[in-house]
C-alpha cells in the first residue's frame, strides 16, 4: 500500500513530482493549523495575565509569560466556596474513569467473545439490541436513571457513576471486541476445546493475549468518553464526588461573576491533559488497533 507514493510510474516528470510533494506538505500543514488553532488560543491565553487579556487581543501571543493561572487552576481556583482548584475533582475523575474503563472493557471483551465465537440462537438479535443502545440520547436516561440509582443506594456516589458509565459503555465496547473477534478463525476455539480448555480458560489464555490492539482502541474510546462526560457527572454526583468536568464547568461557566479567562483556559487544559496524553502516547496503537480489524463493517 505504502509503495504507492514512491513507485509512481513514468507518467509524471521529476519536477512535477517534487511540486506535488510540496503541495502535499503545504496542505498537511494548513490542516494542522486548523486543528491546532483552538489549542493555540487556549495555551496563549493561559499564559497571559488578566490585565493583558482585558486590554489586548484575545487571539495573540502573550507579551509576558506567566504560569500563575496554571497554579491557580490546579490548586487555587474557586469552584464554589472551596478554592482548592481542580485538584480534588481531578482525583475523583481518576477514581471514576479507571475502574469504569476497566470494567466496561472487560465486559465488552467477554460479550464480544461470546457473540463472535460462541454463537447461539438469538445472539445476533441481542447484539443489535445492544448496538442500538449506543445511539440513545443520554438526556433521555437521566431522570429514570436517577430514580434507579436512588433505589439501588448508589445515588451521588462514585460507584454509582461507574455503574452508569459501564452500562452505557457496553454497546460500544461490545461492538469493538465483537468486530475484532469475528476475524479470528473459529478453529482456534475448537482446538482449545479439544485441548481441554473451558470457556474462561480459552478467553483468558488465547483470546485476551490476542486482543492488545483492540483493547487499546476500546480503552482510548472509553477513557475519552468517560473522562469528558459532563451530563452524567453533574447529574449523578453530589458534593465530594463531582468529576473534573463539573469543576471545570464551575470555573469556566460562571454566569454572573468576574471571569478569569487565563485561569479558565489553564483549567481547561489541565482537565484535558489525561485524554490528550492518552491520544499522544497511544495514538499509534490506536491506528494499529483499528487496522487490526475493528473497522471492518
Amino acid at each position, binding site marked *: 500500500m505504502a509503495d504507492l507514493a514512491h513507485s509512481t510510474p513514468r507518467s509524471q516528470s521529476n519536477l512535477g513530482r517534487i511540486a506535488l510533494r510540496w503541495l502535499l506538505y503545504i496542505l498537511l500543514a494548513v490542516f494542522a493549523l486548523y486543528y491546532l488553532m483552538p489549542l493555540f488560543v487556549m495555551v496563549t491565553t493561559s499564559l497571559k495575565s488578566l490585565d493583558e487579556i*482585558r*486590554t489586548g487581543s484575545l487571539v495573540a501571543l502573550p507579551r509576558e509569560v506567566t504560569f500563575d493561572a496554571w497554579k491557580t487552576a490546579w490548586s487555587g481556583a*474557586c*469552584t*464554589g*466556596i*472551596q*478554592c482548592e482548584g481542580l485538584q480534588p475533582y481531578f482525583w475523583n475523575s481518576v477514581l471514576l474513569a479507571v475502574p469504569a474503563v476497566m470494567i466496561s472493557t472487560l465486559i465488552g471483551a467477554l460479550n464480544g467473545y461470546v457473540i463472535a465465537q460462541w454463537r447461539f440462537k438469538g445472539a445476533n438479535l441481542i447484539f443489535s439490541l445492544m448496538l442500538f443502545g449506543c445511539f440513545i440520547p443520554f438526556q433521555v436516561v*437521566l*431522570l429514570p*436513571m*436517577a*430514580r434507579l*440509582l*436512588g*433505589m*439501588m*443506594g*448508589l*445515588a*451521588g*456516589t462514585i*460507584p*454509582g457513576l461507574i455503574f452508569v458509565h459501564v452500562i452505557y459503555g457496553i454497546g460500544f465496547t461490545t461492538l469493538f471486541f465483537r468486530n475484532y473477534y469475528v476475524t479470528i478463525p473459529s478453529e482456534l476455539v475448537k482446538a482449545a476445546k479439544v485441548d481441554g480448555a473451558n470457556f474462561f480458560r480459552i478467553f483468558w489464555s488465547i483470546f485476551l493475549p490476542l486482543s492488545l490492539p483492540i483493547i487499546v482502541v476500546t480503552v482510548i474510546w472509553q477513557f475519552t468518553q468517560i473522562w469528558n462526560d459532563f*451530563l452524567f457527572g*453533574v*447529574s*449523578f*454526583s*453530589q*458534593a*465530594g464526588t*463531582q468529576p473534573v468536568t*463539573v469543576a471545570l*464547568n*464551575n*470555573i*469556566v*461557566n*460562571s*454566569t*454572573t*461573576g*468576574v*471571569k*478569569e479567562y487565563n485561569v479558565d483556559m489553564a483549567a481547561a487544559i489541565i482537565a484535558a491533559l489525561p485524554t490528550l496524553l492518552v491520544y499522544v502516547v497511544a495514538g499509534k496503537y490506536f491506528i494499529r488497533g483499528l487496522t487490526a480489524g475493528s473497522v471492518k463493517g
Partner: protein
Amino acid sequence: MKRSAFAAVSTIALISASAVVAEPQAEVLHWWTSGGEAKSVAVLQQEFADNGGTWTDMPVAGGGGDAAMTALRARVLSGNAPTAVQLKGPAIQEWYEEGVLADISSVAEAEGWADVLPASIAGHMKCDGSWCAAPVNVHRVDWIWANADVLESNGIAMPTTWDEFNAAAEKLAAAGVIPLAHGGQAWQDATVFEAVALGILGAEGFHKAFVELDEATLTSDAMVAVFDQMRTMRGFVDANFSGRDWNLATAMVMNGEAAFQIMGDWAKGEFMAAGKVPGEDFLCASTPGDGFLYNVDSFAMFEVDGEDKKAGQELLAELIVGPSFQEVFNLNKGSIPARTDVSLDAFDSCALLSAADMQASSENGSLLPSYAHGMALRGAQSGAITDVVTAHFNSDMSSADAVAQLAQAVANSY
C-alpha cells in the same frame, strides 16, 4: 453482592457522619462559583460553621442554573435531595407542588421575616401560606451602565426616556462609539427586552403582560412598540455581539469601546474588579421608565431525613435572612439586602440608588419581578416568551409578527 457492599459503605458513612447528635448539617446546591460570588457564599459558610454547623458545598455552574437544575432533578428523583438549594421565583412554588419542599415557617415566624421583607418579595418565599424559602438579596435588573468619559466627551447625559436613549445612541454611533454593548445570548436579549417593556408598557402593563400573561396586553399596540424599540436597539449593537458573554460586553463599556450596557447589577462587580469607581469612571441609572425589576436569589429547603440536616436547614434559614449576613453578602455580590432594616452605610452609590428605588417602588406598586430572570413566570412560559424575543432580535422578523408569535407561544406553553 456488589450493590449491597456499596450500600453498606454508604450507610457506614452516614452513620459516622451523624454520630454526633444533631450537629447542623447542610449540603448546599448553588451556582455561585465565580470569585466574587464564591466569596459571598463563603461568608455564609463561615457563619454557619461559627454556629456549629457543617457545610458541604455542591456548586454547579452553567447556563444560569440550568446545570444545577439538572443535578437537582436527578438528586430529588434518586431520593437524595440536597438540604438547601438556590431556587428562585415561581420555581419555588413549582417544586413545592411536587411535594418535595420543607416548611420553614417556624424559623420565619420566630425571626419575624414578615416585618422586615417587602411584601412582594415575601410573596415569593411562601407556598400555600407557609414559608418555604429564604431570600438572600435583591438584584435590580433594569440597570443601564455607562462609561462616564464617553458620555462626557460626547456631551450626553444619562437618558431618562427611550427617545432620549435613541437620540444619544445615534449621536454616539456617529462619533464612532458603539452605543450599546450587548451579548447576543437569549437571556441577555430578554434582559434588554424587559427593561424596554417596563419603560414602554409601564408598571401596570408589565405586570399584566409578564405576570398575568394577559392576552390583550401581549397583543396590544404597546407591545408592538416594544418590539419596534428592540429593532431600533438592534441597530445600536455592534456586528459581533452574538454569543458574547455579558462580562465581555461590560469590558467594552469599561474600555470606552461602547457607551451603554443594559444589565443587572452583577455588572457592577466587573467594574469594581477592574478598579473602576461608580460615579467617576462609570455611571449607573435605572433604565428609562418607572418601576423596579427585581431578581431575588433565595434558598429553598428540601424535605430530607435526619435531625442533623433539619437542624442545618433551620440554622441556614435563620442565618440567610439575618442582618449581618445580608449586609456582608450583598456588599460582595453587588446586590442589595432583601430585608429593609439593614444599614446601608457601607454600600456604594449605585446600591443606595437601588435601595431607595426599591423602597419607592414598593410603595407605589411598581416593584415588579423580572421575567427574564425567572422571577415572574414559570419556566415553560418565560422560556416561550424568550424564544420569541430572541428570535425577533436576531432576525428581521417584523414587530407585528413577533407579537402574534408571542401570543401563540404563550398559549402553546401550558
